């Protein structure tokens, strides 16, 4: 991703938004010009604080999710037996809207930052798990054979084949998680908090009906995601240099 492309993309989106706003002509979709004004006025003040709170929650929950879901996915992808046992459990739990667990999580963890991070984690976990598992399942058997012939057992295969082979999938999972994690802030940051972009958008969109502020919050989310994507791209180049040779 190049800076210039990002700039043009932003500009194009703003253009589309402006056009849509002019078609709709309603307070629910203010013009991007207005929103940008509000955004720059607020980002160094109130909005900035919400941004940081959300950044922390998103990052923490993503790190935890990847650390738990990626190895679990690898383990399942590696062993047909394990997968057969756990697949139904995953498939039963994945479709449950995790919001219903808010009170239960709060019961154990209280209504603090941790419980919000855990909520995001619950949403990300299955998404990453399924992706990494499916990827690990598709590894070419010849690779496995060749490394087994060098003496590798289950654990070493995991370390030297399944893990590096699944790294690109893990990075795809990271990209997906960024999108999902930021988006679900809106659900998670409604409960017993007054910090975070989710709260900011909700309070301005639903309580104050101040749509230009609400969209300034949406813009902040967008940019929060974009920043994390830049990081993910850098990470990808670092961790998988072999994917970038031509």
């Amino acid at each position, binding site marked *: 991703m190049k800076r210039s492309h990002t700039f043009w993309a932003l500009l194009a989106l703003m253009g589309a938004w402006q056009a849509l706003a002019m078609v709709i002509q*309603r*307070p*629910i979709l203010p013009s991007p010009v207005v929103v940008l004004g509000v955004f720059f006025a607020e980002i160094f003040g109130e909005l900035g604080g919400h941004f940081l709170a959300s950044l922390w929650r998103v990052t923490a929950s993503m790190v935890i999710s990847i650390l738990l879901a990626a190895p679990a996915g690898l383990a399942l992808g590696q062993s047909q037996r394990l997968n057969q046992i756990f697949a139904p459990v995953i498939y039963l739990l994945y479709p449950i809207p995790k919001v219903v667990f*808010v*009170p239960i999580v*709060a*019961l154990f963890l*209280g*209504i603090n930052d941790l419980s919000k991070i855990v909520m995001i984690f619950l949403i990300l976990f299955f998404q990453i798990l399924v992706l990494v598992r499916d990827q690990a399942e598709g590894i070419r058997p010849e690779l496995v054979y060749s490394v087994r012939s060098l003496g590798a057992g289950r654990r070493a295969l995991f370390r030297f084949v399944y893990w590096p082979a699944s790294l690109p999938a893990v990075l795809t999972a990271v990209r997906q998680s960024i999108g999902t994690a930021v988006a679900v802030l809106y659900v998670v940051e*409604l*409960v*017993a*908090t*007054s910090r975070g972009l989710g*709260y900011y958008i*909700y*309070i301005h*969109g*639903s*309580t*104050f*009906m101040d749509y230009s502020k609400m969209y300034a919050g949406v813009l902040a989310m967008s940019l929060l995601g974009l920043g994390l994507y830049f990081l993910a791209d850098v990470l990808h180049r670092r961790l998988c240099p072999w994917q970038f040779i031509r």
Partner: protein
Amino acid sequence: SQQQKVRIAVLPVIDALPIYVAQQEGYFKEQGVEVEIVPVLSAPERDQLMQSGQVDSILTEVVVNMIYNKETPQIKTVRFLRTTTVTTPMFRILASKDSGINTVADLAGVPIAISEGTVIEYMTDRVLEKAGMAPTDIAKVAVPKISDRMAFLDSGQVQAAVMPDPLASLSIKNGARVIIDDTSYPEVSHSVLAFRIETLNQQGEAVRKVLAGVEQAVTAINGDKTRWNGLLAELKLVPEPLLKDYVLPDYPLASVPSEEQFADAMQWAREKGLIQKDLQYADCVDASFLP
């Protein structure tokens, strides 16, 4: 002349009963107006529908009406749907079982779970002030979903919360204590029916008919409170475990918030920063459509 449909977005609360009754009993039809009840599950969704022009009318409250109108007048309150009466409170401030809170004084500095910027917060401030609490002692925490408030109260994650009638009874059943309710200050708690101003201008006649239908329904309900159990069960406006013992409140007859009520709510809304400038009563409340 215009036989247009009037669409009303309605929350699943007992306050909406007159509208459902008018629909079921055919009062709207009798009046010659077609009404579509659009059920919504939460206030944000209701407002989204209104903002995108998908409905003409909403079940709401005066503070929200003011927020709608803070830039330009958009909607007007045309009728009370429910108010607190001396006998039946709308909202209660409850304390959790093991909190050790028994009196209003114990609530000082204890965060009370509320939903921000709504009549619930307004009522909490006013009722507690009236009971002698210093405004600086009133602490609040935003938990917009009633079910979350209830769960948190129940498990002690919050020590106090505001619950609406009739759900408050459920919490009480589970051991929560009533610290105070709004019967001490009945002027604050209410819900209203508000219409988009364009609708009022273009379809005033239809609005009048709607209100006439509601009036018929209110009279019918207040006249015989036992007749509606079937409808209540079907609509599930009252949780099942409470249904058996539940007594419907008295619904207000044709009326709108008074100028004093409006002024007090506006003062509160300005202090809270919900609105930035004073609004005209006439821009927000309109009694002229009442039968």
